[in-house]
């Protein structure tokens, strides 16, 4: 096992991408994720890779499309307003069935918003970054170690399913340092005979394309793509349970909000309140089945998130509104304190979630 080192989330993620075989980083500066670009600018030339600062977020994601179409692993990273600009490219990536790895180190919004951590791009990541019917695989790490492992896994899943994997972090995840092991194992190889590498005059030409003017064909493409999504929903859900064995209150939280919630759960447990947490690691696919099962055991849920209440909608859908779901939130770059979460847990304990 390799020695653990202390690394910033953003830098650890960048190193993990290189270890995953990514040799093309295309990006544009924006706070709070610029360390990723800075790290790549230093490292890529040393590993024979390409770091390119594009003229815009839009150009960057389209360069990712080009690299990916050519059969190579490519990534870009940005923060909320930049991801909005990348939306166009994300839709094309889906329409062309191209793999890509995209990082969103979220900040407060809407508009230029702020630069402090936020989770208010949950809808954007899981429901609709852009036009058309499609999904991205969305990963939400809650530690620097997971920034690394999810990046490594993310590149693999992108190639395996030929789709965009988005790593949804926030300023805290990006800026914090924790001990991390970079021991990730082998990089799997996938067939990329669809890539545009030149026909060598030896095969029919490959076309990477999202245009289907015949509606029958476009419908068929969409149905096929959603077959793949269904498979992913069955097979790729990742989550962590914390103290759920005897819990009668279930917190649902991801990323930094889950870290804060752990403190709050420990505090509540010390007071004798039976509370636990389901932490989705994949936000899409969302751990629907697991939450539905938990709903039969607990009296209520608390969605802890740094948004005005986005994931809470998925919690309600997953649990089919069988149990009340309370919201514990801070927004605009504010992070909830363990005390605030504890207060919500106590309210849930007292009222059973019924106001």
């Amino acid at each position, binding site marked *: 096992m390799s020695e653990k080192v202390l690394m910033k989330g953003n830098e650890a993620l960048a190193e993990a991408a290189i270890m995953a075989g990514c040799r093309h980083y295309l990006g544009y500066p924006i706070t709070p994720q610029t360390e990723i670009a800075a790290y790549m600018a230093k490292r890529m030339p040393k590993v024979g890779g*390409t770091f390119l600062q594009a003229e815009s977020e839009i*150009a960057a994601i*389209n360069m990712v*499309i080009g690299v990916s*179409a050519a059969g190579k692993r490519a990534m870009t990273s940005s923060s909320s307003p930049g991801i909005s600009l990348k939306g166009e490219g994300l839709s094309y990536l889906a329409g062309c069935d191209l793999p890509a790895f995209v990082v969103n180190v979220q900040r407060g919004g809407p508009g230029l918003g702020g630069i402090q951590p936020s989770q208010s791009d949950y809808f954007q990541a899981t429901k609709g970054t852009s036009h058309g019917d499609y999904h991205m695989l969305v990963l939400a790490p809650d530690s620097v170690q997971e920034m690394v492992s999810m990046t490594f896994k993310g590149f693999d899943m992108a190639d395996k399913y030929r789709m965009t994997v988005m790593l949804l972090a926030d300023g805290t995840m990006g800026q914090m340092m924790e001990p991390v092991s970079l021991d990730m194992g082998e990089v799997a190889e996938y067939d990329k005979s669809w890539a545009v*590498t030149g026909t060598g005059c030896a095969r029919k030409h490959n076309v990477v*394309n999202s245009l289907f003017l015949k509606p029958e064909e476009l419908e068929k493409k969409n149905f096929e793509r959603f077959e793949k999504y269904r498979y992913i929903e069955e097979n790729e859900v990742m989550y962590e349970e914390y103290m759920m064995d005897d819990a009668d209150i279930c917190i649902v939280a991801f990323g930094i909000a889950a870290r804060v919630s752990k403190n709050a759960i420990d505090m509540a447990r010390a007071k004798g309140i039976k509370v636990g947490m389901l932490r989705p690691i994949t936000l899409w696919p969302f751990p629907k089945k697991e939450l539905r099962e938990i709903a039969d055991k607990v009296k209520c849920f608390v969605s802890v998130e740094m948004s005005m209440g986005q994931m809470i909608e998925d919690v309600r859908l997953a649990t089919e509104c069988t149990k009340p779901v309370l919201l514990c939130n801070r927004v605009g770059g504010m992070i909830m304190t363990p005390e605030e979460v504890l207060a919500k847990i106590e309210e849930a304990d007292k009222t059973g979630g019924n106001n």
Partner: protein
Amino acid sequence: MAVVFEKPKALTDAVLHYCPGCTHGIIHRLVAEVIDELGIQGKTVGIASVGCSVMSYDYFDVDMVQAAHGRAPAVGTGVKRANPDNIVFTYQGDGDLAAIGTAETVHSAARGENITVIFVNNAIYGMTGGQMAPTTLPGQVTQTSPYGRDTNTVGFPLKVCELLSNVDGATYLERVAVNNVKNVKAAKKAIKKAFTYQTEGKGFSLVEVVSTCPTNWGMTPQNALKWLEENMIPYYPLGVYKDKYAQEG
């Protein structure tokens, strides 16, 4: 029986969908002939853009990527950076290249990206049915300039070759036309030089082909050619706007 004329290998057997009198067909053929002559069909990757030529991915018998509106040079950059041994060209119209994709155009030139851009300028948005383009001439009537392009309110056309000639990163810029045999020959020579430069690693080249759009100009093909000679070419003079390696050539 001796073959006196045949389709270039770099074109597929697909039937072109272009309107009668449209010059895309000629330009496609010139690009394909150059690819054949340079023997690069097997390693060429084309980037189709959005506009009338969107389906050029069906016509060129090389690997193709269809790019979002205006983004072909960025996609081309990605393809070229991924596999520098590939020969990468984009095929773009005026709305794509000089309006929605201006930034991608200027910055791929500024980076000296080793790709070839074929820019078809017919002064109108063809695919969407004839709207004003960034290259629509002053006074020219289109669907969205029904009283003629009024330079007081919508400004002046962009002259792409002139604009890019100030960009240090650009290697070779030439404006050509395909309105007569002489110009078709000159256009092919320019396209061949652009591709040749790329094979020699010389950097960014763009060939602007001043073209007609009889359908949306509302003219017969013959009248469209006449209108091009009398209006387009005087505004967009043909010639070499930049050639870093002119001495060698």
